[in-house]
């Protein structure tokens, strides 16, 4: 839709929600995993895995849904690797997460080259075939509401899924015994063990869930929002998600607020970038003398600033990042 038909505010708000969606999706997974005590620095890599899996499978088969499903499964598969090293192998979570990022970078680059070669050898375009990518889905009459319609009810399908998932996870964490278990796992795994709760199994499940969420977030980036793939596609959004979970103090509400805030910064940044070339708004036009790298930097600077302002004195899950069972002594 041509932004000229909307007013600035609606356009920005809609871009905000659109940009926040992958953050929300990946954030839900990361939140659950951190609640159980596993910090997954590799979320960035999981998202990238989702991007490449969705794009190549959707491109090869022509079915977006297959791409999406593959992205979720691929995210879970790579997350399983992470779980195997950190939960079963009790290796350091930060280091394993870093390795995961490197792995995803390598794998996606390799697969992307292979995919390009294959498409070229068969005289096919590497662009996503028609119908393989998703377009926005308006929700009936709701989409015609002023402001709220285009902002909330004319989004990509995964946005609605993300909202439902967020609500579901919130209810689970808040009101069910499953939620109690999740919260207890990150705080006191020894209590869980004494209650007969299989600590490692639950952590495995949480990490797999996070992997699936991150995979879906990746799919959103490559086959919904852009219909393209680039090897630096996630561009650090996974790391922003990590900051957001802390920023939101491990609560769903805080997380979503944070995601919307960063979505806003992101959409502003992108709008400002394009405004350099195709400017519809005088305000944006005026800013074009600023180098656009400054705007690209904005989300990261904002994440740092948010952490600096807000992260004090909130403990978070007490056992976050610690292996279970803890070592008594291993040289």
């Amino acid at each position, binding site marked *: 839709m041509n932004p000229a038909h909307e007013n600035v505010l609606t356009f920005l708000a809609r871009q905000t929600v659109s940009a926040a969606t992958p953050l929300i999706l990946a954030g839900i997974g990361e939140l659950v995993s951190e609640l159980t005590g596993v910090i997954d620095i590799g979320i960035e890599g999981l998202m990238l895995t989702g991007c490449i899996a969705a794009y190549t499978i959707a491109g090869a088969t022509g079915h977006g849904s297959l791409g999406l499903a593959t992205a979720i499964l691929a995210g879970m598969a790579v997350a399983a690797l992470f779980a195997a090293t950190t939960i079963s192998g009790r290796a350091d979570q930060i280091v394993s997460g870093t390795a995961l990022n490197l792995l995803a970078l*390598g794998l996606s680059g390799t697969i992307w080259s292979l995919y390009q070669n294959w498409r070229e050898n068969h005289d096919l375009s590497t662009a996503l075939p028609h119908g393989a990518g998703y377009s926005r889905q308006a929700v009936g009459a709701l989409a015609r509401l002023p402001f709220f319609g285009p902002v909330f009810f004319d989004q990509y399908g995964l946005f609605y899924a993300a909202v439902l998932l967020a609500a579901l996870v919130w209810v689970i964490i808040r009101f069910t015994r499953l939620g109690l278990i999740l919260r207890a796992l990150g705080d006191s795994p020894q209590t869980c063990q004494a209650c007969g709760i299989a600590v490692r199994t639950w952590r495995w499940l949480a990490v797999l869930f996070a992997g699936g969420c991150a995979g879906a977030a990746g799919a959103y980036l490559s086959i919904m929002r852009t219909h393209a793939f680039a090897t630096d596609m996630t561009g650090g959004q996974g790391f922003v998600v990590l900051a957001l979970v802390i920023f939101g103090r491990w609560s769903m509400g805080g997380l979503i607020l944070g995601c919307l805030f960063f979505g806003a910064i992101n959409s502003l940044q992108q709008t400002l970038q394009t405004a350099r070339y195709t400017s519809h708004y005088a305000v944006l036009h005026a800013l074009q003398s600023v180098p656009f790298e400054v705007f690209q*930097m904005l989300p990261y600077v904002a994440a740092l600033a948010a952490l600096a302002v807000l992260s004090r004195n909130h403990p978070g899950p007490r056992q976050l990042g610690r292996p279970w069972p803890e070592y008594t002594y291993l040289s």
Partner: protein
Amino acid sequence: MTTFHSSPLQRHAGRFSRLISTVALIPLAIGTCGLALGLVLSGLALVGYPPLAIMSRWVDGSIGGIYPLTNSLADACPLLLTGLAAGIAFRGGVLNIGAQGQFLLGALVAVGLSTRWLIFHSAPPVIILAILAGTFAGGLWALLASILERYRSVPIVLSTILLNFVALYVVRAILQGPLQAGGTPAPQSPQIAPAYWLPELIPFTSFHLGIPIAFVLAVLFYALNQRTTFGFESLVVGLNPGAARLAGIGVSRKQFLLMFMSGCCAGFGGALQVLGVTHFMTGSFGNYGYAGIAVALLGRLNPLGIAGAALFFGMLDTGALRVEESSLALPHAVVNVVKAVVILLMLLLSAYLLGRKLRTRQVDPPPANDQGSDKP
């Protein structure tokens, strides 16, 4: 006692105790590399690449002859320095994941000084000043994360990662702005005048002065770790900050210093890379910082081990270029897969093999000294 409860990510010191262990260092590292290569090659064989051909081209491209060999060494140099950066910090319990950003800033300052901002008639002062300034730029960038942790409780893990991205865009903005080479819209610096290049020790190869310096630095760091009170203190701080505090070691001061040294190492690497190898800078300037973490882990945080690991990774990179250029056209990104698999295998192997070995050893009754107080 909630008062002393700090942010969870800051209570991680001590986490590398298993890695620092010297048990089976060399066999484990070599085994890991071999296994990783084997895994990736067999993965590639499944997609239809002939593993033997890849291996022979890879060996040829990395150590077959003086040019491949010097290229491998030249590529190992920045990896060694970022590896040392990660190694020093990790050993002291500081999770500096930001070598990439520190590396970039070091390179940026060095290229800026030697192309635009510092022009003398004689070369040595320019080279030395550019390298020093690049080194300090890296160190100061790292300190930013320490300061954020000290005064605002931002976990270093997160701040260094985010600062990597900030550094990336700072570099791009400056390469688009004040440092842009004329005639191209891309973020790219002008070339450094050949007089200011680091001298080549073997003519017409990429074996520049920085390479032996980097390896000597590794030996110095080894001595620092093993022989000095400074090295002992940083080990204690990394293994158990509580005990260090009780022993009168200023833990946060020490960690500040280690972070600064770590950043300096990475910045030094950036400066050497730009003055010795590339001679100009673009908006995407390699992935040495992240790879440095892999190097440090493969070398088990031991400077000499890191030197060995850097050599291996340098060979991996250089050899892979040959494989990519050859008729096999293997994408270069495979190298990253190998590196990642190396780290993951390293973690898994040290968890399972060493873990099992030590666990059985621990269960043995301590010889005749047990008064029945400890249960396994």
